[in-house]
């Protein structure tokens, strides 16, 4: 982003700029919008006016992106010709091979897993900044605490790990169920 634009943004925030052009520019530029958002957070924090409830960290975008990234409609990857399809070696890496076979399986609890990953990600990030900053010049911790209840429940990190593990377990067992059904088909 242009430094010039940022300066104009800063001026606009201080009320020293009444140029309609800048407002229009901001309304069309997403990166400027997020910059605007950040400036406000920074200002509130410096003035000590920041409290958790006033700040809702916008993770809807992240959720949307995670969902968009997710391979719901698998794109056609490079298509090898029949002769090129590799024949695996004799190592018994069974689960690795089974992994994506049953398309239905891989979608199990997808929504839940996405949400979980994002919550964990946010918390991890804040945990880090917690360690580094130490000094309460910019106290961002209160808002961190408020980020968690996307699913409506406040949870601790340990619990989320446990839940992740439970999902892994369910995923494995669903794959196993599908495999056993095939092996025992009459």
């Amino acid at each position: 982003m242009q430094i010039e634009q940022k300066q104009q943004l800063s001026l606009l925030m201080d009320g020293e700029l009444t140029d309609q052009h800048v407002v229009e520019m901001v309304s069309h530029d997403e990166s400027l919008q997020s910059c605007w958002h950040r400036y406000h957070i920074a200002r509130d924090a410096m003035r000590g006016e920041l409290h958790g409830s006033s700040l809702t960290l916008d993770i809807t975008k992240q959720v949307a992106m995670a969902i968009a990234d997710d391979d719901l409609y698998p794109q056609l990857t490079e298509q090898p010709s029949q002769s090129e399809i590799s024949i695996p070696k004799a190592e018994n890496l069974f689960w690795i091979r089974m992994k994506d076979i049953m398309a239905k399986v891989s979608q199990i609890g997808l929504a839940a897993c996405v949400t979980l990953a994002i919550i964990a990600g946010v918390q991890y990030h804040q945990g880090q900044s917690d360690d580094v900053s130490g000094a309460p010049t910019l106290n961002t911790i209160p808002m961190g605490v408020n980020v968690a209840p996307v699913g409506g429940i406040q949870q601790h990190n340990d619990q989320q790990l446990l839940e992740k593990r439970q999902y892994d377990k369910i995923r494995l067992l669903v794959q196993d169920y599908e495999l056993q059904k095939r092996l025992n088909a009459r």
Partner: protein
Amino acid sequence: MNFLYSLIKFMLKQSNNFFITLFFIFFSASVMAEETHDALSLLNKMTKAVQTRDYQIHFIAQDKDQYATTFEYNHLGADKKENINAQLLYLEGPAKEIILHNNTTSYFQPDSPSFSISSSRITEAFPDVIYNDFNSLANIYDFILLGKTRTANRGAQLVKVIAKDKDRYSYVIWIDDENFLPLRIDLLDEDNDIINQLKVVDLDKEFDAKKFKNYIDNRTYPILLSIEKQNNLLDAWRLAWLPKGFKEIAAYNVNFYSSDIATKLFSDGVFSFTVNVSLEQASQLNQIIQQGGRTIFSTNMGNKNIIIIGNLPQVTIEKIAQNIVEKSPENSR
């Protein structure tokens, strides 16, 4: 005298009614029996046709509230299982292909290595219900003819397969009038909502069986992944109650984070489920995930976590979970 006459007349009338009633009872019973018999023989013909005929079909498969997926299925029938050849092609997304040859099923996919497992059927095509000896299911299921209709540009008969105990989902199968192939298979829940559907779009009459056989025979197949029999099974629990007709099919351990999960697979030929008992408890007491016909139920019991996965209604799955008993006190930790 007059009285006697009227009494005889009355009795005659009564017996007349009685005979009429009797007639209707027997008649309707025989009609019902015939209908069941028709439905039963139709289903048996279907099972035979699906395995012994040569055919090419295109079909759509769909879970409730999910996107439909399209497939091509080629089949070379035979009386002996090991001689059956089949191929399933995914018509959208990555070009996956599944081939059945010599009781072995090979999976080919563009994005990861291919492999084979020993399986006598491509279960991604028709569901388990299609492959049954329906005579042996007659004690557990009712077979009801629902009438005639048309699908995939062909005449078809509708047969409902429903458990007598009403503790399972039910199927409505559309069977081709001429060749007895299943043309549509609806899985219905307790409210008679379709939760999974397989629908044949067309049946290719110009299917070149020879050419297909040639293709199967000249293909290179990936190595067979062997699944070894396990010896040290954690045999710590059993089920005090099972839905009628279900039997234990397999028992084994699944390794997860260096701990073993004791697993058993049960089936009645139409539906199936696994019970998985592990020592690591889940953070949530009860969890339920439903997806098309599949139900996943996780619950904590005592110091154990129990996960049941299968194509059964939630009520039945929960009842199964409640009936898990530990085999002997020494085994409980």
